[in-house]
């Protein structure tokens, strides 16, 4: 048997980089022990990921763990040679240490393109000003951080994706950030404070996902926005004065979303849309909208109006999901006769799939189902899932009776 050849070391550099990048950082650095050729191969890996799985430190004492972690990251950074394309730091035991500042400074001298920082515990970590000088940043993801850029900050010119969760930043800072990142395509915001008006001025934005507490949403220049998912985590807008006599939020919301394709209205956002005048239909139909998901209280008149208006304005819907809020619905009496009127007819020419969940089989819910069934000639499947099993049989009995416009339609009852 001839001598075995070492084939792996002679693979081209970028392939080895790829292999090493996929490994957890620990294993990647350990390859420096393999043989002479492998000593510094790891130092060129473009991705550095320090997370809880990568570095397993078993110790009870918090300080020890922290010190070890700081040490390891220090060393890896020092020994690393070459551009760092992606840097991720997300270790459970790293509490807002000032060492992070130092590492960010080190990275700012290079050309990092993706930066992910997740501070698991403790208060918001104030990001150092050198973070704002990452010229080549394409993706920024922050968790539990405080952003306070210097006055001269002109935005991240190349930023395409921004993910901010549990962050604090001031209103102007937020607006500035969004509007100055001209290439921004994806924006995710979750649980933020410091600002309450979501003014989104982003010409290249395609994906927008927000969940938090805010007063107002306005889009400007967002003609490419195709996916919007909004959740308002507070029940009812605080300031009733705002709602009374204010312009129709619904109209304002949709006026700058001409090409929206997927819309998810989560939590209590529908209440926001109910503020002001609710038109019977939108002035301009959302021709591209093919998926809609609405979290709705079927017993609330305004919410139903909003949903109805929306459905009427989207003739090309292919999939509808309507989720009830069972905890609320019990409080108010059932709303009957809303959806069932004969002249409320509209055609869902492309509707193929409907999912209804969280209902209890009362008045307006059934009307809504009836409405959808009788107006969707190409419906293939409708699944109905009640919130609880009581009244299940009644619900099924009603479902059986409903007329269906589509002969292909399957109505499937799912166990709660």
């Amino acid at each position, binding site marked *: 048997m001839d001598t075995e050849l070492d084939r792996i070391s002679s693979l081209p550099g970028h392939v080895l980089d790829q*292999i090493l990048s*996929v490994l957890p950082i*620990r294993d990647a650095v*350990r390859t420096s022990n393999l043989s002479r050729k492998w000593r510094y191969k790891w130092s060129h890996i473009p991705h550095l990921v320090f997370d809880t799985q990568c570095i397993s430190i078993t110790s009870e004492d918090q300080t020890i763990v922290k010190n070890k972690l700081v040490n390891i990251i220090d060393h890896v950074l020092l020994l690393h040679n070459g551009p760092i394309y992606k840097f991720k730091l997300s270790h459970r035991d790293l509490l807002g240490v000032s060492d992070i500042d130092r590492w960010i400074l080190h990275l700012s001298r290079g050309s990092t393109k993706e930066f992910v920082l997740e501070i698991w515990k403790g208060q918001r970590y104030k990001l150092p000003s050198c973070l704002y000088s990452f010229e080549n940043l394409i993706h920024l993801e922050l968790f539990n951080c405080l952003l306070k850029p210097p006055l001269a900050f002109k935005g991240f010119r190349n930023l395409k994706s921004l993910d901010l969760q549990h962050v604090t930043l001031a209103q102007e800072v937020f607006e500035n950030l969004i509007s100055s990142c001209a290439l921004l395509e994806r924006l995710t915001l979750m649980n933020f404070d410091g600002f309450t008006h979501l003014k989104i001025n982003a010409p290249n934005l395609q994906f927008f996902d927000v969940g938090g507490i805010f007063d107002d949403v306005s889009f400007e220049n967002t003609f490419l926005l195709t996916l919007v998912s909004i959740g308002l985590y507070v029940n009812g807008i605080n300031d009733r004065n705002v709602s009374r006599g204010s312009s129709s939020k619904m109209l304002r919301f949709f006026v700058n979303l001409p090409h929206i394709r997927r819309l998810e209205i989560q939590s209590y956002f529908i209440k926001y849309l109910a503020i002001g005048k609710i038109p019977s239909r939108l002035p301009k139909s959302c021709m591209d909208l093919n998926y809609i998901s609405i979290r709705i209280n079927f017993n609330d008149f305004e919410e139903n109006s909003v949903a109805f208006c929306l459905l009427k304005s989207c003739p090309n819907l292919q999939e509808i999901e309507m989720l009830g809020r069972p905890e609320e619905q019990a409080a108010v009496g059932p709303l009957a006769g809303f959806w069932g009127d004969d002249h409320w007819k509209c055609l869902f020419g492309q509707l193929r799939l409907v999912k209804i969940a969280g209902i209890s089989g009362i008045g307006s819910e059934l009307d809504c189902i009836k409405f959808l069934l009788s107006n969707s000639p190409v419906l293939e499947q409708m699944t109905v899932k009640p919130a609880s099993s009581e009244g299940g049989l009644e619900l099924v009995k009603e479902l059986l009776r409903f007329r269906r416009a589509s002969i292909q339609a399957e109505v499937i009852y799912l166990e709660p």
Partner: protein
Amino acid sequence: MSEVDMAVVKPEAFVDDIIQLMRNCLKGSNPVAIVCQMMRSYIWIQTTDGAVQQVEQEVAMFCPMICQEVIQKGRGSSKNHAISLPQGVGPSMFSLILDYCRFHQVPGRSNKEHKSFDEKFVRMDTKRLCELTSAADSLQLKPLVDLTSRALARIIEGKTPEEIREIFHLPDDLTEEEKLEPLKNTNDDPRIRLLNRLYAKKRKELKEREKLKDVEGREEHVDDRSVDDLLSFINGDSKGMKTSKNRKKHQKRKDQQKCAPMYKKDSNAFSSLCHNAKVGHELQSSLSETLKLQDVTDMIFAPTVGFEDVDEIDPALKEEIDREVEDFARILNSDWPERMQELLSLGQGKRPAQLSINGNGTLKRFGMTVVSVTLYVIVWMERTRSWATMNSAVWIPAQTTSGWNNFDQMLMQVAYGKQKDCILIDVNSHLSDLWRAL
């Protein structure tokens, strides 16, 4: 339509042939059916063994490199103009790649099907996996490169260096220069436990040697502790340690105290502690001939640098490293710079020479001596078979190579115990233990 009217077109037919055929058929009044399947075009490819084969067009065009050849250079249309595969793509690898392409180019398959095919596809021995990676890369078939890279990464993940070397047949040529992420010593027991754990393997050996060790003839200025104490310390009984003279001659510089990787050959007696803050800085310990006293404070520094393999490190880097080494020496302590210079210049004179460590670790070829800054150290005087404290850099000829193994560990344990803030790492086969323990 009768059979007669069906034009049978041979696979090798060229387009003009087909057109001619069609013209002929159309002259007649009968309808013509040209079976599509036979019109499938093929691309001619020559594998590295010289054989020429035909590959279905859609399969071959899945590879960007072949695609490029066909479109930009117009090759592959005939036997004489076959596309020759790059060197890295052997015939067996090529047929594997074709299998891959054949599956993946079919549209309409679900992600799940693709995934399960991929999973089964990469189940092969590592040798073939490496070859396949190389071949896929030559053909610029990125999805396959990604797949094989991930498979290789999965093989490497979680294994010790020995296992990895075993699997990939890597030469174990790093004995002197194994490098470890420096560990900063902190004043806590887990560290001591950690080090003790490292030497767990050799404890038995130590115990045996303990019996052989001669504890008589200790010099007066020997350290307070007896060998027994030391050994018992090593064996996990830290209570046996008497208080150390915690002399800190050097200012502790927190920022730069990243400790020293050490090098140790398995059969060799010596580990040197050196400070290393940059990649490429390989510090080499001296070998059996020369015993270097180790500085056991946190500012361990072995100024002389030797490189085993000059090929890998270019001279500019070496020079830079030397300079760093000197710089660092200066930083260490203001008392020492001249000393350091002196020591450095002892060894310096020429560029760090290649150090070759042969079997018994002789350093005869080595023109310069490896020097370490020693502040306070306990030395095992082999000559007198006793412990002694030394305050300066001293060279003590080693007696036997095998004996130093234990000394080494003892030294480190001792030093570690004595100087709480010292940084010690023994880099040898324990490296993997240490790293694992991190």
